[in-house]
């Protein structure tokens, strides 16, 4: 789920923090830029791990800040395909289950990747729906009333295990004419590069579209193009879902063995 990645970048240090003699200013610059950022095809950066090398600084004309070339390692979150992850159910809808890991919430298990046979039971409120795994073969049926029987259900707030089916990255660019998708990359499929038209350089180069309207000059070209990560999960195999289901099954098997002996 977590791994280390080595990154080389040029960081700008403000003149106000010159003269400290240590790497705290560089650490601050990295911590201000990288955590909570998604890097295309890499993952979600969690935290700085360590600094490997700090190069010599450069000062550009008309800029009082110093630019350091830094090589450092960061902790990145990106589960690999097939990895089993535990998360809490954020929402159950007819389209599937949305899962949350507290720090990352773009995880969903589509309805076709949920254990079968299954059915979706609507609740009184939209957030009270649940997915039920039962023995009857009524896939996809929507039942408005539930019967009084013990059922294997997943509702909002449950802690579940699921396996990662694919991790999808979407690159977006905010330009004068709005948001358009640059690239979609998935761990299972090849990269899909969206067609782009040539634009006037004065519009796109170093300019970003501010939320609420208006152009603004990008402070850092690295994140002019934003990237989002989404995880698709699966819960079709035995052992996944709620842990209670499988513990109870093992206890029953143990009792049966005792009765036989």
């Amino acid at each position, binding site marked *: *789920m*977590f*791994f*280390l*990645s*080595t*990154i*080389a*970048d040029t960081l700008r240090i403000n003149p*106000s*923090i*010159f*003269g*400290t003699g240590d790497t*705290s*200013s560089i*650490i*601050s610059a990295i*911590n*201000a830029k990288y*955590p*909570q950022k998604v*890097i295309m*095809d*890499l993952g979600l950066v*969690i*935290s700085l*791990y360590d600094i490997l090398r700090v190069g010599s600084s450069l000062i550009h004309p008309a800029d009082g800040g110093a630019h350091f070339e830094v*090589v450092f*390692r960061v*902790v*990145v*979150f990106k589960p*690999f395909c097939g*990895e*089993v992850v*535990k998360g809490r159910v954020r929402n159950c809808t007819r389209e599937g289950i949305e899962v949350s*890991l*507290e*720090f990352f919430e773009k995880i969903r298990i589509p309805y076709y990747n949920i254990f079968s046979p299954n059915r979706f039971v609507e609740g009184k409120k939209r957030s009270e729906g649940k997915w039920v795994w039962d023995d009857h073969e009524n896939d996809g049926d929507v039942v408005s009333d539930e019967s009084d029987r013990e059922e294997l259900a997943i509702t909002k707030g449950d802690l579940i*295990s699921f*396996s990662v089916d694919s991790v999808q990255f979407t690159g977006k660019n905010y330009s004068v004419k709005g948001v358009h998708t640059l690239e979609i990359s998935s761990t299972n499929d090849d990269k899909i590069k969206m067609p782009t038209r040539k634009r006037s350089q004065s519009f796109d180069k170093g300019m970003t579209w501010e939320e609420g309207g208006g152009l603004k000059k990008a402070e850092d070209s*690295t994140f002019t193009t934003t990237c989002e990560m989404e995880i698709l999960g699966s819960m079709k*195999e*035995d*052992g*996944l879902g709620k*842990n209670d289901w*499988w*513990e109870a*099954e*093992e206890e029953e098997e143990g009792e049966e063995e005792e009765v036989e002996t």
Partner: protein
Amino acid sequence: MEILSSPQQPDLLTNHEVMTLLTSNLAPPKSKKKPVSKKNQPNTKSPPPSAFQTSALTYLTSLPPPLSPLSLLRTLSSPKYSLEKTEIIQLVNLLPDNLPLLNVVLPEVEERFEEGVGEEILEVVKIARGKEK
């Protein structure tokens, strides 16, 4: 920005290692120095603990970690089990307590290992988890 390491062969970290790192990052610095006058002093304070890293730490602490993760890692890394790196990490992170979940983490357990090895791995994990209680 340039990514130097290969994403195909990453250095994997367990949840416990990340939790330890975040705990040390978010801990308040211990300073016995007397407060210095702020006049003409450069601003060297590190940014406040981000809500994002705090939420990551909240998630990691909600999952029960093994009491001695290093010894568990050494046991699972022994040539006796011939486990992949990703499988070892998952076993340490999830601490499975039932065979169905173990079968998902270690595919084709019955074909890869001799009879009883799956239960043996479960017992090793159970001891690592049970010591904490």
